[in-house]
C-alpha cells in the first residue's frame, strides 16, 4: 500500500490545523474564547492524533494525546486558561509542528524533547488520574482464588461460547453470521449448535427480530479478551458468555497462586492472568460503586458470568456535553500547483487566439461572425478571470504567522507591542503569497527591533508605553499594497547618512533629499543597528528584502517621520500572468500599459514637447517621452501627440506617445535574460495580429518621470539609484 500521497495530505492537513491552533491560543491570551473555539482547539489536536495513528507515528500520537487531554478538560470547563497554560500549549503546539516537520523530512523523531512538556501537561490532568485511582481502590481483595475457581463453569478442551443475540441485532445492521464467520479468524469452530427455542410461529412474531441463539465450541489459542472483542459491537444487545477450556482454568489458578504475594488489587490480578477482561472488571466496579451495600468484587464478577451484562456506562453519570458543531467551513479542493500553472498557460494561449479571431472577424463584413467572435472573446475573458482567481489566496495566510512572531520577539526584547492586522482578506497570487513571507518577516522584525522603543523610552517621549505595529493590506489600481507601519522613533536620517558615507555608499558632500537618504538603507551592505542583536542582525539586510520584492515586479517604499514612526509600503502586482492592457503606438511600434494603472488620456500641449513636465488642471504633471526615451525616430513625430496619465503607488506621471490604440487582453511573457535589465520594460506579449509588443514598466516610468522632474532632467542617469 503506497501511503506517500496520503502522508503528504496528512502533512498539509497538520500544518493547517497547527496554524489554526496557534491562532486560537493567541486569541485566548487577550480574550475569553467562545465554546466553538474550545471545540475547534480540541479538534485540531484530536484530528492530528487520529491521522498520525494511521501512519503509525506513535511519537506524535503519544504527545498529541497529552495535549488533547488538557484541551478536553479545558473545553469541559474543568480547568481554565492561565498564562502559564497558554504558554505551555503554544510550546506543545511548536513541538507537534517539529514532530510533523521531522516526519516530512523523514528525520528521526525527536522523542526525548517531548518528555518534559508531557510531564508539565500531565500536571493539568492530575485530577483525572485521581479519579481512576479511587475506582481501583474500591476493589476487594478477599477470597480470590476460591471465587474464581469455583465460579466459572468448566468446559471441555475447547472454548465454549454461549451466544444469545438480542431481538434488535438485525435491525441494528448486525448480522450474527458475520460475527461467527469472523470468529474463525481466531481458530477452528469445532461445533455450532443453533438454539431455535425462541423462534415464534410463522406470522406470529416480528419478522425483523432475531430469535436465534448459538452454542459454539471453538478451538483457539487466543486470549479471552480477543474472543470477547469479536463481539464488541453486540455486547450490549446480546448475552455472551465465554467459558475457557478446562486446561485454561487450571492455568488461571496457577497464575493467581503465583501472584499471591503481589500487593496488586484483585481486579488487576484477574485481568493480568486473563481470566477477566477489563470490560468485565469495569462493569463490576461501576456496579459496586453504585450499590449501597457493596459486595466483594469477586462475588460480583462471578455473578457477571450468569447475569446478562447491563449497560452501566449511562449510570456513571458522565456530564452531558453538548454535541459540538462547526458550520460555515468553506469546502475546498486541493490541486497540485503545476496543474494550475498549466491551466493558466493554456488560458493565455486561448486569450491570444481569441484576440486573433476577433481581429480577423472585424476585418470581414460578416455581422454574424463578428457577433460570434465578440461573444467568444467575452467568454474567454470570463474563463481567464476565473482561472486567475483560482490562484488567488488571501494575504491573511501570511499575516497569520505574525501574531506569534510579534508576541515572542517583543517578549524577548522586553517591549510591549500590539499588532493590528487589517485587510487580511485582500487576495493575491498564490505564488506571491509564498514568496512574500520572508521579506515581510524581515520588515516586521526590523520594526520591532529597531523601530519601536522600549516602554521607558516611549513614556519619556510622551507616547503610550505599548507600541503599535500595523500590518495592513489593500488593493490599489491592479496592485496589492502591504504596509508595515510602526509608531516608533522613525528613521534617523543623519545617522543613516553618516553610515552610508562611512561605508562608501555616497560621497560625503552629496546633496540628498530625506527620502533619498531613507532609501540608502536598502543598499547592499548597509546596517543601521549600532549593535547587532540576535533578531535583525542576521547578515540579511534590507537590500535582500528589496531584491526579493523587485523579483516579484513590486516596489518598496519608505516613509518615516522622526519620533512618529516608519511605514514600509510594499506594492506588488496582483498576478504574474495575464492583465488587461492598454495599447499605445510610438513611431510604428506597439507598447502595452497595464490598464489598471491608466488614469486618463490627454493631448500633449504643444508647449510641453520634449519631455519634462506639463500642466494638468493647474497641477504639475511630470512625464516621459517614449519616443525620446527609447530612441524611436524611425517615423517622423506626428503633429499631435498624446499623453497617457498613469498612477502607481499614489503618484501620477504622464507617458507621451504617438497614438492611442485601445484596450486589449495581454498575456505576460517574460523577456529573455538579455532584455531583463532594460529600463522601462516589464515584459512582452503577443498581439492578436501575431506581432510582439513590449509591456511598459509603469512603476519604473513613474519613478523616472518624477526623478527627471526633481532634477530638471540633469541627473537622469542617477535613475539607477531609484528602486522600481
Amino acid at each position, binding site marked *: *500500500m*503506497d*501511503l506517500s*500521497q*496520503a*502522508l503528504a*495530505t*496528512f502533512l498539509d*492537513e497538520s500544518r493547517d490545523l497547527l496554524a489554526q491552533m496557534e491562532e486560537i491560543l493567541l486569541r485566548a491570551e487577550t480574550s475569553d474564547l467562545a465554546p466553538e473555539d474550545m*471545540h475547534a482547539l480540541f*479538534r485540531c489536536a*484530536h*484530528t492530528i*492524533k*487520529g*491521522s*498520525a*495513528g*494511521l*501512519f*503509525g507515528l506513535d511519537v506524535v*500520537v503519544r504527545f498529541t494525546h497529552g495535549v488533547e487531554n488538557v484541551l*478536553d478538560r479545558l473545553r469541559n470547563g474543568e480547568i481554565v486558561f492561565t498564562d502559564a497554560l497558554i504558554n505551555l500549549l503554544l510550546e506543545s503546539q511548536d513541538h507537534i509542528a517539529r514532530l510533523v516537520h521531522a516526519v516530512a523530512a523523514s528525520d528521526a523523531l525527536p522523542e526525548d524533547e517531548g518528555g518534559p512538556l508531557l510531564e508539565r501537561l500531565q500536571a493539568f490532568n492530575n485530577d483525572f488520574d485521581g479519579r481512576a485511582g479511587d475506582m481501583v481502590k474500591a476493589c476487594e481483595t478477599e477470597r480470590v482464588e476460591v471465587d474464581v475457581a469455583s465460579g466459572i463453569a468448566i468446559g471441555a478442551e475447547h472454548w465454549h461460547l454461549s451466544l444469545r443475540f438480542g431481538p434488535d441485532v*438485525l*435491525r*441494528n*445492521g*448486525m*448480522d450474527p*453470521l*458475520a*460475527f461467527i*464467520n*469472523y470468529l474463525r*479468524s481466531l481458530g477452528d469452530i469445532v461445533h455450532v449448535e443453533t438454539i431455535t427455542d425462541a423462534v415464534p410461529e410463522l406470522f406470529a412474531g416480528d419478522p425483523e427480530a432475531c430469535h436465534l441463539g448459538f452454542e459454539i465450541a471453538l478451538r483457539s489459542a487466543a486470549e479471552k479478551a480477543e474472543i470477547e472483542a*469479536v463481539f*464488541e*459491537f*453486540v455486547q*450490549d*444487545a446480546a448475552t455472551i458468555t465465554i467459558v475457557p477450556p478446562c486446561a485454561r482454568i487450571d492455568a488461571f489458578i496457577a497464575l493467581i497462586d503465583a501472584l499471591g504475594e503481589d500487593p496488586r488489587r484483585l481486579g488487576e490480578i484477574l485481568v493480568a492472568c486473563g481470566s477477566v477482561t477489563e470490560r468485565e472488571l469495569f462493569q463490576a466496579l461501576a456496579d459496586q460503586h453504585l450499590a449501597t451495600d457493596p459486595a466483594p468484587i469477586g462475588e460480583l464478577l462471578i455473578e457477571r458470568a450468569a447475569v446478562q451484562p447491563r449497560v452501566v*456506562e*449511562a449510570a*456513571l453519570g*458522565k*456530564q*452531558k*456535553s453538548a*454535541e*459540538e*458543531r*462547526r*458550520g*460555515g*467551513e468553506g*469546502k475546498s479542493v*486541493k490541486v497540485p500547483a503545476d496543474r494550475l500553472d498549466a491551466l493558466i498557460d493554456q488560458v493565455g494561449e486561448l486569450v491570444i487566439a481569441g484576440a486573433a479571431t476577433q481581429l480577423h472577424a472585424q476585418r470581414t463584413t460578416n455581422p454574424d461572425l463578428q457577433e460570434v467572435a465578440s461573444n467568444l472573446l467575452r467568454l474567454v475573458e470570463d474563463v481567464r478571470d476565473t482561472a486567475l482567481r483560482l490562484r488567488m489566496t488571501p494575504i491573511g495566510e501570511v499575516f497569520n504567522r505574525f501574531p506569534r512572531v510579534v508576541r515572542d520577539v517583543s517578549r524577548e526584547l522586553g517591549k510591549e507591542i500590539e499588532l493590528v492586522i487589517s485587510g487580511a482578506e485582500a487576495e493575491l497570487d498564490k505564488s506571491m503569497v509564498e514568496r512574500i513571507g520572508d521579506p515581510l518577516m524581515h520588515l516586521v522584525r526590523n520594526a520591532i527591533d529597531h523601530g519601536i522603543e522600549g516602554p521607558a523610552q516611549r513614556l519619556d517621549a510622551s507616547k503610550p508605553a505599548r507600541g503599535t505595529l500595523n500590518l495592513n493590506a489593500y488593493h490599489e489600481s491592479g496592485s496589492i499594497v502591504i504596509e508595515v507601519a510602526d509608531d516608533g522613533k522613525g528613521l534617523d536620517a543623519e545617522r543613516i547618512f553618516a553610515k552610508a558615507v562611512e561605508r562608501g555608499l555616497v560621497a560625503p558632500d552629496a546633496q540628498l533629499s530625506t527620502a533619498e537618504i531613507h532609501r540608502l538603507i536598502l543598499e547592499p551592505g548597509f546596517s543601521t543597528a549600532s549593535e547587532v542583536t540576535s533578531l535583525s542582525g542576521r547578515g540579511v539586510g534590507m537590500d535582500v528584502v528589496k531584491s526579493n520584492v523587485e523579483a516579484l515586479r513590486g516596489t518598496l517604499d519608505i516613509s518615516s517621520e522622526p519620533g512618529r514612526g516608519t511605514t514600509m509600503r510594499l506594492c506588488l502586482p496582483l498576478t504574474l500572468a495575464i492583465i488587461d492592457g492598454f495599447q499605445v503606438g510610438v513611431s510604428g511600434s506597439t507598447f502595452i500599459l497595464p490598464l489598471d494603472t491608466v488614469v486618463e488620456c490627454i493631448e500633449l500641449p504643444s508647449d510641453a514637447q520634449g519631455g519634462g513636465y506639463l500642466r494638468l488642471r493647474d497641477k504639475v504633471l511630470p512625464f516621459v517621452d517614449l519616443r525620446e526615451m527609447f530612441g524611436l525616430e524611425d517615423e517622423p513625430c506626428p503633429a499631435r501627440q498624446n499623453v497617457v496619465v498613469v498612477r502607481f503607488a499614489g503618484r501620477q506621471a504622464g507617458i507621451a506617445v504617438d497614438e492611442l490604440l485601445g484596450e486589449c487582453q495581454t498575456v505576460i511573457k517574460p523577456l529573455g535574460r538579455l532584455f531583463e535589465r532594460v529600463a522601462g520594460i516589464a515584459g512582452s506579449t503577443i498581439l492578436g495580429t501575431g506581432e510582439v509588443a513590449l509591456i511598459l514598466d509603469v512603476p519604473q516610468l513613474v519613478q523616472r518621470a518624477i526623478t527627471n522632474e526633481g532634477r530638471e532632467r540633469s541627473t537622469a542617469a542617477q535613475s539607477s539609484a531609484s528602486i522600481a
Partner: protein
Amino acid sequence: MSKTVLIVDDSASLRQVVSLSLKGAGYDVIEAADGRDALGKLGGQKVHLIISDVNMPNMDGITFVREVKKNPSYRFTPVIMLTTEATEEKKRLGQEAGARAWVVKPFQPQQMLAAVSKLVM
C-alpha cells in the same frame, strides 16, 4: 460481488488510508468529507457498511446517522462510528441514532479492517 463501504470523515488523509486499506481487501469505497456531503453522495445507492466520524463540520456524524437511518434503504446498514475515549455520552447518542459499532481513534488500518469484516461478510 464486492461490497461497498462509505467512509465519512473530515480528515482527507484518514479517508485516504482507510480507503486504501479497504480497497486492498477488495471492498469498493465511497468517500465523503462530512455528513451533508455523504447524504448527497449516497443518494439511495446500495452500501453495505457506513463508517462515520462523529465530529465534523456542516453535519456531524450523529445527525448524519440519524438522517441516513430515516431512509428505508439503509435501515439495516451497519454503521461504525469513529470515536474518542471520552465519549460515553456520544456513544449513547450514537446508539440512539442507530450506530452500534465503534472504532476508537487513533487506530491502525488493520484494526479498521477487522471491524469491517466483523460486520460485512
